[in-house]
């Protein structure tokens, strides 16, 4: 009897409005930071946020900024990023970061306001079909029409965003549902029956992989962002595996830091702008172990010439990644961390590693390495962009540093010349290649790590896409450093125009540029300009010293191009190396047929 009484009391305490439920559900899912922008359709939720302190709301200047900030937050912490936006334009502005998070497997929970249920479909003010628009750019999405389902839906959204292959989710909440009263249900562990990502790898397959690896004479490990997503344990196990096997290792853009760049088996990044040794080793290997990567077209080059003589082991949590672009001889479906645990254990138990047998392979790799494919010509008068990154790297050594980037040449130079020894330190838009990602992402990282040194390695064009978040950084005293490699060009576009379009530089030169130093000041930040190589170290030191958001306008050689490069449609062993990249070679690197297809 008294039990029934308690139940009733408990029910009463769990009765609340939809808006209260949103805040309660966020708290119950461990959310402490929320990136957002208000509007009519989310005012009840904003009213609840106003009346509590457990969750800090970060007011961005554009919803795209909220999304990338949440992505940076997620990538640097391993926790989901959360954003809150209003209906209509708020939701459509969120589309770019949603697709970005989908392509890079980032756990992102996006709450959107919607017009009242009774008005849905009537072209009401600020109405849009949010679930329709975001269906193809989310892992899953929901329109909640019943307040009694709101809490469970938000819990499920967190569950789906963070488990299996992580990704973005949207919960669309009509305004009347935010006002309505209902019963709050706490998070529970009875997820829907149709969703069970497979995490444990098939032991027989892992055994077969270990046997294959034990016989390899020219092996290579090719790891990707999946290792980082799997968590720090997976990176640790990857390091153990490399140590045990003595195999060389390369990684995709998204996977940098899982294996330390200072490690002795590291070959550098692979792919279109990867190192010569990494790409040649991929091409000539006899056993390839692909761990949490997906054989993206920027990685493989020409598919029918991709690593023609190797047996391929592919570990991935998403069955659709396997055999999508490249056929796997030993496919292993599961969470990278779990599979690596089994793999390391089996290797220890069953293989007596004969590292001597790999000597000829390492000697071959040393010859490739000797080509020094990241070399560039220094200049005493102009700052070479590669040099700027190298100095930045040296200046940040030993500091608690996080790097984000925009998209373009500077992104590739950052990947080549900044070296990462830990996972979760490198935030870049890989799959979608979103210009404007880096500045808000840096903001998100800084919110998560207030005392860290967070630098956005930016391009002059990209940074202008989301520059308004400087204002947000100033408001929250987030001392992010925007390090612009200012070449006055959309350098990467120009490079392709040189390669493919007879050097006709159609609209890739920015004729009017803001004064970035004054712009920084206008926002209430600090501006620095550097034009000479000799001044660079002092200027970087100043940037690191200043406890404010900084825009660093680093004037670099305008016409430098990014090499080495696998030109359009070439194979890994057909790279264009910097010392061969004469003007003529660049102009002829891709033939007419290639031009049509790019």
């Amino acid at each position, binding site marked *: 009897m008294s039990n029934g009484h308690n139940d009733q009391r408990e029910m009463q305490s769990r009765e609340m409005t939809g808006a209260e439920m949103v805040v309660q559900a966020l708290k119950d899912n461990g959310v402490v930071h929320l990136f957002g922008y208000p509007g009519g359709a989310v005012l009840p939720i904003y009213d609840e946020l106003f009346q509590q302190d457990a969750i800090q709301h970060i007011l961005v200047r554009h919803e795209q900024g909220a999304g990338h900030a949440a992505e940076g937050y997620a990538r640097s912490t391993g926790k989901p990023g959360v954003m809150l936006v209003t209906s209509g334009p708020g939701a459509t502005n969120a589309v770019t970061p949603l697709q970005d998070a989908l392509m890079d497997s980032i756990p992102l929970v996006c709450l959107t306001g919607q017009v009242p249920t009774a008005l849905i479909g009537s072209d009401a003010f600020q109405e849009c079909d949010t679930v329709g628009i975001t269906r193809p750019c989310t892992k899953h999405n929901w329109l909640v029409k019943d307040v009694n389902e709101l809490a469970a839906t938000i819990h499920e959204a967190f569950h789906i965003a963070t488990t299996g292959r992580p990704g973005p989710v949207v919960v669309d909440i009509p305004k009347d549902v935010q006002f309505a009263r209902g019963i709050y249900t706490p998070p529970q562990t009875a997820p829907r029956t*149709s969703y069970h990502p497979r995490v444990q790898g098939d032991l027989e397959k892992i055994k077969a992989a270990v046997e294959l690896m034990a016989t390899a004479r020219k092996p290579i490990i090719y790891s990707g962002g999946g290792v980082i997503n799997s968590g720090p344990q997976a990176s640790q196990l990857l390091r153990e595996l490399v140590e045990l096997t003595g195999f060389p290792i390369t990684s995709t853009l998204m996977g940098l830091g899982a294996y330390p760049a200072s490690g002795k088996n590291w070959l550098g990044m692979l792919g279109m702008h990867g190192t010569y040794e990494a790409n040649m080793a991929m091409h000539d290997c006899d056993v390839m172990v692909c761990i949490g990567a997906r054989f993206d077209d920027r990685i493989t080059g020409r598919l029918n010439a991709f690593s023609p003589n190797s047996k391929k082991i592919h570990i991935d949590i998403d069955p659709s990644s396997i055999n999508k672009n490249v056929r796997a001889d030993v496919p292993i479906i599961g969470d990278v961390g779990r599979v690596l645990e089994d793999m390391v254990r089996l290797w220890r138990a069953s293989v007596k590693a004969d590292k001597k047998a790999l000597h000829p392979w390492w000697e071959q790799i040393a010859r490739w390495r000797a080509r020094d494919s990241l070399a560039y010509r220094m200049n005493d008068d102009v700052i070479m962009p590669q040099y700027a990154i190298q100095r930045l790297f040296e200046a940040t050594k030993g500091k608690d540093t996080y790097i984000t980037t925009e998209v373009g040449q500077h992104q590739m130079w950052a990947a080549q010349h900044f070296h990462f020894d830990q996972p979760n330190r490198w935030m870049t838009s890989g799959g979608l290649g979103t210009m404007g990602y880096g500045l808000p992402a840096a903001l998100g990282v800084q919110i998560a790590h207030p005392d860290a040194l967070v630098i956005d390695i930016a391009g002059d064009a990209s940074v202008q896409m989301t520059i308004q978040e400087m204002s947000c950084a100033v408001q929250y005293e987030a001392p992010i450093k925007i390090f612009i490699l200012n070449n006055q060009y959309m350098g990467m576009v120009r490079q392709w125009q040189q390669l493919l379009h007879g050097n006709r530089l159609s609209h890739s030169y920015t004729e009017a540029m803001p004064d970035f130093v004054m712009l920084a000041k206008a926002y209430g930040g600090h501006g620095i300009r550097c034009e000479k190589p000799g001044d660079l170290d002092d200027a970087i030191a100043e940037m690191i010293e200043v406890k404010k958001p900084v825009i660093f306008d680093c004037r670099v050689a305008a016409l430098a191009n990014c090499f080495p490069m696998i030109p359009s449609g070439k194979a890994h062993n057909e*790279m264009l190396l910097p010392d061969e990249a004469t003007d003529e070679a660049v102009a002829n690197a891709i033939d007419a047929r*290639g031009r049509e297809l790019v």
Partner: protein
Amino acid sequence: MNAQLQPTGSAYFIAKETEKPETHTLSILVDNEPGVLARVIGLFSGRGYNIESLTVSETEHEKHLSRITIVTRGTPHVLEQIKHQLERIVPVHGVVDLTVRSKELGQERPLERELALVKVAGKGDDRVEALRLADAFRASVIDANTEHFIFEITGKGSKVDQFIAIMKPLGLVEICRTGVAAMNRGPQGM
């Protein structure tokens, strides 16, 4: 190296397809919730897959389950991708390629049936002929007056095709087809 001397394709290398396309029938068990069909169809259009026939209806009301049957065409590699991509959709419980399963069971193909309503209008000899042919096809008359018939015909798609072709010169007015319903023979479920 010397890449500039070896002209080739593109960074978006479009490999020549060497596999032959095949027609397969897929059964997809899904939670019957708003938007689930849009997710399935959106996947097909978004990734450039074909839909030759689509049938959907709730099959287990208490469990809120619907069964979608899709006839699609693609190379074996694409068909494998379609299955995996469908399985990624959160409310999808399972996907069975009935065509593959029937081969595994040592059968030629899954059981496939379609229902069509066929309206034929006419007088005189054409009308008699239509009725006679409908009888031969075991189509039943479900509505009629002196100037028209509506036939209901059930069978394999090819039989329905044939029936419609024959009715064309006899005063065919309109057709409604359900699309393919399919399952594998034998005692096991999907």
